[in-house]
């Protein structure tokens, strides 16, 4: 390779990189103009701004659901021992009165048992009051569903908007062969020309063959 040809190659390289840069510049300009014309530059800007907001919102959902779960578990932790005390107290009193009713009447024993019964009833009034308060708290803890629901609905809307915008961008600027491939969803409807497509079955026999080859 002589000096001339090396210089020529370098020149060629420079020329092509200049052309590339100019082409990228041109594309960027066109893209920018088209985005502005479509009103997409604003929406993309909005979407970029929405992203940190989405993170905050999702964090809020995590926090709210965690708090609600903790609140419910705390309430059951407090209510279960109260319920157990009522059950244990009632069955022990029931036993006492059952054996009392089977033995001869004794006024002294009767008074003792009556005292114990009244004591239990007083405790039960306060225990069931306290466990009802816990039940009310469990009910109130469910308010997270409304609040997180509102936040999640907003995020769904945002994700949907972003998807629509990105898809539009792709459809407008993708090369032709990629455009064909974008239609890969599961809702493609009846095939107009199945014979010419590799990934489409053209009769029921092919359907059955495919299924049996997969072991169905």
């Amino acid at each position, binding site marked *: 390779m002589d000096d001339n040809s090396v210089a020529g190659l370098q020149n060629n390289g420079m020329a092509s990189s200049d052309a590339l840069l100019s082409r990228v510049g041109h594309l960027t300009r066109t893209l920018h103009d088209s985005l502005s014309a479509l009103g997409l530059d604003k929406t993309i800007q909005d979407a970029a701004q929405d992203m940190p907001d989405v993170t905050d919102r999702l964090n809020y959902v995590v926090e709210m659901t965690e708090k609600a779960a903790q609140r419910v578990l705390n309430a059951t932790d407090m209510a279960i021992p109260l319920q157990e005390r009522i059950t244990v107290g009632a069955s022990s009193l029931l036993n006492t009165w059952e054996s009392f009713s089977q033995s001869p009447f004794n006024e002294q024993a009767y008074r003792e048992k009556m005292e114990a019964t009244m004591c239990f009833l007083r405790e039960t009034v306060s225990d069931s009051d306290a466990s009802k308060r816990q039940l*009310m708290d469990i*009910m*109130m803890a*469910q*308010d*997270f*569903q409304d*609040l997180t*629901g*509102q936040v999640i609905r907003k995020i769904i809307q945002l994700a949907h908007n972003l998807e629509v915008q990105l898809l539009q961008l792709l459809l407008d600027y993708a090369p032709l062969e990629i455009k064909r491939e974008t239609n890969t969803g599961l809702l493609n409807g009846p095939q107009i020309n199945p014979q010419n497509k590799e990934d489409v079955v053209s009769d029921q026999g092919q359907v059955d063959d495919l299924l049996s080859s997969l072991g169905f």
Partner: protein
Amino acid sequence: MADQNLKFLVVDDFSTMRRIVRNLLKELGYSNADEAEDGVIALAKLRSEHFDFVVSDWNMPNMDGLTLLQSIRADAALASLPVLMVTAEAKKENIIAAAQAGANGYIVKPFTAATLDEKLVKIFEKLGKK
């Protein structure tokens, strides 16, 4: 204490919140309540049956709580109906807009049973003085 037979309309698009508010009202002694899931349904119910009190959310499909409130105030037959807003909208401009539209009270979610009780008592006190 206000009349226990007062009929409440609870308006919220989330059924969980409607149940919570109804349960709280019941706990406070008001067991006569009906529900609506948005402003349109609420307005239709208010115009066809008698209600004494409305507890409404703000952000709802079809007709939001503020529009419902404005429609109630603009309707001669409903204009004096007490309306308590119970909403997650916590911006000052929301609260001011609701007050200007004639809300009798404003509770921000999440709220407690005690807050609801307090606001109801306050509203009934004011109404009693009129």
